[in-house]
């Protein structure tokens, strides 16, 4: 691959070039200073580049070649559900009647959009076993915070103001404690037992009259099913708390079991994981929240409702609502894609999705299990965690193996997470990958473990074939250069 520095768009700029076209002003002009006072009239142009359209296209084409998506190759990034993003979703989200509508249009002029959202809500209720759903949160963490604010409003409405703590497992994703903090709670940790599951005795110890909620994904962050989920829910409920389902791992259980049937009170989903919204290089996502009936009054407003006359509209009259969590009604375009996916698969299809996701993960785990330390012995669900501790003794870190995978055209697994597992590699193949892909990946990863034994420097110095080598992160943080400045 070429090792040339890629110029910044600013470095391609040349005075006098342009890549846009507007019609000439067809109205009589006023002098600008009659419309804007001198103090408020911009004196200096922003230093934006001047490039032609072709140069602009080539710039981004060059950047795209220096990037790797699911369309490029296998992307077994644990906890992220990097499944295929269907092309038809992109087509329908761009339909003029969906992409070019304004949220403040009269309800009667956006009935199609409201109907779509209403149908999506209904489907998500069925999938999660919840009684009501809001589509307003923009992403998973936003959904977590929304869900916790709902729980807080519920406790406050009951005059139960001493519930200041949210319990999170020691394996939890960082957003769980962070969302708890933004919702005004203190995060407390519950330990995992030797099987990687919530330690029930420890949960009994931490759950008390100050507990607002427990946040728990199931299967959990280790990819293991919390077999005692009903007991867990009972312990938290007995203490007066609510049980929150982090939907990050929903891909494992569709049609198998539902959060609502496991004893959960609140759920968020990541439509950009389980329901094929593309990850977009970091976003946008969509994080709908579902709740049981007793929490429904606290959902953000407005809610999308079906009226008696069969038309659809917004319900703003919700006095107990936590309020608005985002302007307008959520990441509509992502919700359209998720709806398209659900209709493409149907109920039976989504069940097949989860079965195949779990099959692929267990198969890949089995293929790799002799070559790594495996902290947990039971079946996994849609993902699993290996430990690189055996390789660490040879001087090869998990980071090195991840970088070596880049040379073989793979995006590496999630590494060093969950924190509980030494030198963790967290692998989630997803159901959209074929057995051939899994076999090739396993062969390569096993070959890397052999390299670690025989010539570790090949792994330690990886990657060898990427456009750039390992980057100096310390320098980046110590002397932050966060923008281009004209020399």
């Amino acid at each position: 691959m070429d090792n040339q520095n890629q110029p910044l768009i600013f470095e391609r700029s040349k005075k006098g070039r342009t890549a846009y076209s507007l019609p000439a002003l067809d109205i009589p002009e006023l002098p600008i200073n009659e419309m804007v006072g001198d103090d408020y009239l911009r004196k200096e142009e922003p230093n934006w580049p001047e490039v032609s359209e072709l140069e602009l296209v080539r710039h981004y084409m060059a950047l795209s070649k220096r990037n790797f998506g699911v369309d490029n190759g296998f992307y077994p990034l644990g906890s992220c559900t990097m499944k295929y993003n269907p092309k038809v979703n992109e087509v329908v989200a761009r339909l003029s009647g969906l992409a070019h509508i304004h949220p403040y249009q009269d309800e009667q002029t956006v009935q199609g959009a409201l109907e779509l959202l209403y149908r999506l809500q209904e489907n998500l209720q069925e999938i999660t076993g919840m009684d009501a759903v809001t589509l307003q949160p923009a992403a998973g963490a936003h959904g977590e915070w929304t869900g916790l604010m709902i729980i807080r409003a519920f406790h406050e409405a009951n005059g139960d103001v001493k519930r200041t703590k949210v319990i999170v497992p020691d394996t939890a994703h960082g957003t769980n404690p962070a969302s708890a903090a933004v919702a005004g709670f203190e995060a407390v940790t519950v330990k995992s037992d030797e099987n990687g599951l919530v330690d029930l005795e420890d949960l009994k110890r931490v759950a008390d009259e100050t507990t607002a909620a427990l946040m728990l994904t199931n299967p959990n962050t280790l990819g293991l099913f919390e077999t005692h989920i009903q007991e867990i829910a009972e312990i938290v409920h007995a203490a007066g708390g609510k049980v929150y389902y982090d939907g990050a791992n929903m891909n494992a259980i569709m049609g198998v079991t539902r959060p609502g049937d496991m004893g959960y009170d609140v759920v968020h989903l990541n439509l950009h994981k389980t329901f094929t919204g593309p990850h977009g290089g970091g976003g946008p996502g969509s994080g709908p929240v579902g709740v049981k009936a007793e929490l429904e009054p606290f959902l953000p407003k407005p809610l999308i409702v079906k009226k008696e006359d069969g038309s659809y509209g917004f319900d703003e009259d919700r006095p107990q609502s936590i309020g608005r969590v985002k302007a307008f009604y959520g990441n509509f375009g992502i919700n359209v894609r998720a709806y398209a996916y659900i209709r493409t698969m149907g109920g039976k299809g989504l069940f097949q999705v989860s079965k195949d996701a779990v099959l692929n993960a267990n198969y890949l785990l089995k293929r790799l299990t002799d070559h790594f330390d495996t902290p947990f012995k039971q079946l996994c669900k849609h993902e699993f965690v290996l430990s690189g501790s055996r390789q660490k003794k040879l001087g090869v870190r998990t980071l090195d193996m991840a970088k070596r995978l880049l040379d073989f055209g793979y995006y590496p697994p999630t590494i060093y997470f969950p924190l509980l597992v030494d030198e963790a590699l967290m692998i989630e193949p997803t159901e959209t990958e074929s057995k051939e892909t899994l076999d090739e990946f396993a062969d390569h990863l096993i070959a890397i473990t052999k390299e670690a034994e025989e010539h570790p420097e090949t792994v330690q110095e990886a990657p060898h074939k990427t456009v750039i080598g390992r980057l100096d992160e310390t320098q980046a943080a110590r002397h932050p250069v966060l923008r281009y400045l004209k020399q």
Partner: protein
Amino acid sequence: MSQYRYLPVTDEDRREMLDVIGVQSDEELFSDVPEKIRFKGELNLEPQLSEPELIRFLSRLAKKNVSTSDYPSFLGAGIYDHYIPSVVDSVISRGEFYTAYTPYQAEVSQGELQAIFEFQSLICELTGMEAANSSMYDGSTSLAEAALLSSGVTRNKKIVVSETVHPEYRQVLATYAHGRRLDVVTIPSKDGETDVQALQAAINDETACVIVQYPNFFGHVEPLKDIEEMTHNAKRAQLIVASNPLALGILTPPGDFNADIVVGDCQPLGISESFGGPHCGYFAVSKKLIRKVPGRLVGETVDDKGQRGYVLTLQAREQHIRREKATSNICSNQALNALASSVAMNAFGKKGIRELAEQNIQKAHYAAKKLSEEGVTVCDNHTFFNEFVVDCKRPVSEVNRALLDQGMIGGYDLAKSFSHCENKMLVAVTEMRSKAEIDQFAEALGGIIRG
């Protein structure tokens, strides 16, 4: 044969794989799910659709909507119908971009990282600020996070916000403030601008920040110079400015007025209305706040051979490292929309952003004049950008229905958010509206109001 085009595992594969795993059936893979909570039967979802059926069905739903590509729209209030260069969609449709995850593995994510670095740079240039992050969910959450940042830095709990800030942004702020137990004080407006006397009276040493919108919700250019002075005269208070980025093509950037944080939504620059989202919040700060910023930041560095490259940096602020002590809980952001906006900003360049902003302000002023000529009361004698207020003398919802009958989408009904704005319509005029459309709108609105 698989009937699902996204699922490659064949029956033969399945048998082989189950054999390797050492189980009899895929049912056995779920033996850890207790029987009592197993879902019985099939999920009762809407029926499965083939690809042609799906496209037909969703096209039918889409056609039930009145699209701003078919009807000239005078509706704004935070989201606008603007020119989007074709190159934008071409770039964001590249699978390398839209099917990628957050660029944690920098060696195979240089494209995304560099694109974000350029986005940060473009936003800094536009706002006159020293650093910008890689995006927030939207303008409203960006504004709320700015208030949380201020409160954290100043250790003050009083958030002072002008009533002329977008009503939904203020509602989102209220929700976040309740979470963090902050007090929000709302300053009334006077003739469509922040009542500066009331503002002065509200600012004190307990104030964490003053939040204004520039241009404000009514389209007016707030007197930032005076507001900045008042704010920074207080001991610790910070100035947060929410700005339509397009307006900054012609207005003095908030950074030049010593704003501490500038936020807003990039929708006007390259992002379709899309019924309110996904759009792209931007978040820009002065140098002293760089290490307090929420969300992802991309920084420049070098690799082991000294080649220039880009990485996610200052991650010690973020939830995956700091957990409950993080500056924010944000993880996913709006990266693809930030990319879309970058492409548009680069297409416009330094000349284009100015021309675009000028066309907006010119057309809006022309429309205001035309409406006056048609006997419509234009309530604004202030400086405004591309929006202004008219008095419809009757409920705006009625007026808008009549406009729709004549093939136009009318403005925003201010009575929905302001009790003192009965019968008032916020009219937005962008570069997309031709003289003929504006004339027709003025004539129609004049006619409807006269009855």
